[in-house]
């Protein structure tokens, strides 16, 4: 599964609450840096923040996908924040985001970048998968759900 190759237990944070989206984005960037998958924290953070300033990456159905391309990483990498309470992300449907996927890729991995983003929008179509991710009790459980092959009901 595309996402399980991009997001690992080290880059999953559950029970997120009480933060604004900008602070959360910075925390997600730091998770990627701490996992050893980023070579330039400042470049990464600047790229993601600039993209978010151009327009909110909060989509519908509780999903937000802050993203950017940056030479601060060598491959497609990601982090996920899970919030049952929800984070105000200026989302397209006006509702809070419960699954916030930060995805970053270098310029030369455009196709894999798009496939990763596409896989995330697919998650938003699955109520079952979304609710299981939101109610997961550990990063390991989140990864297990991400590793599953799709949603049989779709």
């Amino acid at each position: 599964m595309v996402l399980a190759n991009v997001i690992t237990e080290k880059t999953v944070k559950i029970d997120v609450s009480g933060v604004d989206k900008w602070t959360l984005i910075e925390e997600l960037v730091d998770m990627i840096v701490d996992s050893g998958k980023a070579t330039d924290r400042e470049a990464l953070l600047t790229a993601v923040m600039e993209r978010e300033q151009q327009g909110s990456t909060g989509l519908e159905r509780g999903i937000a996908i802050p993203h950017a391309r940056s030479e601060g990483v060598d491959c497609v990498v990601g982090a996920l924040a899970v919030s049952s309470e929800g984070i105000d992300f200026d989302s397209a449907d006006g509702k809070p985001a419960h699954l916030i996927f930060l995805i970053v890729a270098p310029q030369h991995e455009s196709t894999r970048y798009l496939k990763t983003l596409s896989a995330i929008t697919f998650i938003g179509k699955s109520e079952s998968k979304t609710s299981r991710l939101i109610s997961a009790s550990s990063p390991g459980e989140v990864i297990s759900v991400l590793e599953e092959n799709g949603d049989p009901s779709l």
Partner: protein
Amino acid sequence: MGAAPLSKILLAVDATEASLAAARYGIAVAGIYGAELHAVYVVNEKLLEELLRAKVFVEAEEVDLEVDLEEDGNRYLSYVKKLARDKNVNVNTELLKGIVHREIVDKATQIGATLIIIGEIEEPLSRKDAFYDEGEMILRRAGCPVLMVRGESLVDDIYDSL
């Protein structure tokens, strides 16, 4: 007698390790049997359109991405050329844009391919997606035999031994 089974091979290259393994296998087969080898990379316009519809991107990103997707494709095709050159095999490469399986199937028909080689098909995201996976669609729609390559270490042995 018609065309020999392995006389003209079309490699379907995409941005996956699986398709590069398939390319190594295809190069080996072409080298061993003297097949005419073609490699095609299709820029997946459907993928980009889906993300645009979901409003994931702002306008500035769209323009950059279209250019970068073509550069991705050219990079992968250059790598396939190198893999072929390393084994003294000729390969004709072409970058196309559109719906992946349609472009591959049409190209195979156009050149009279006797075999299409694809990389391992990914697990489907859903039952519906299983019918829409590009690799599956090539299998269903091709007008010639299709070989899906699996077993990377075996592929590497075959390629390395050429």
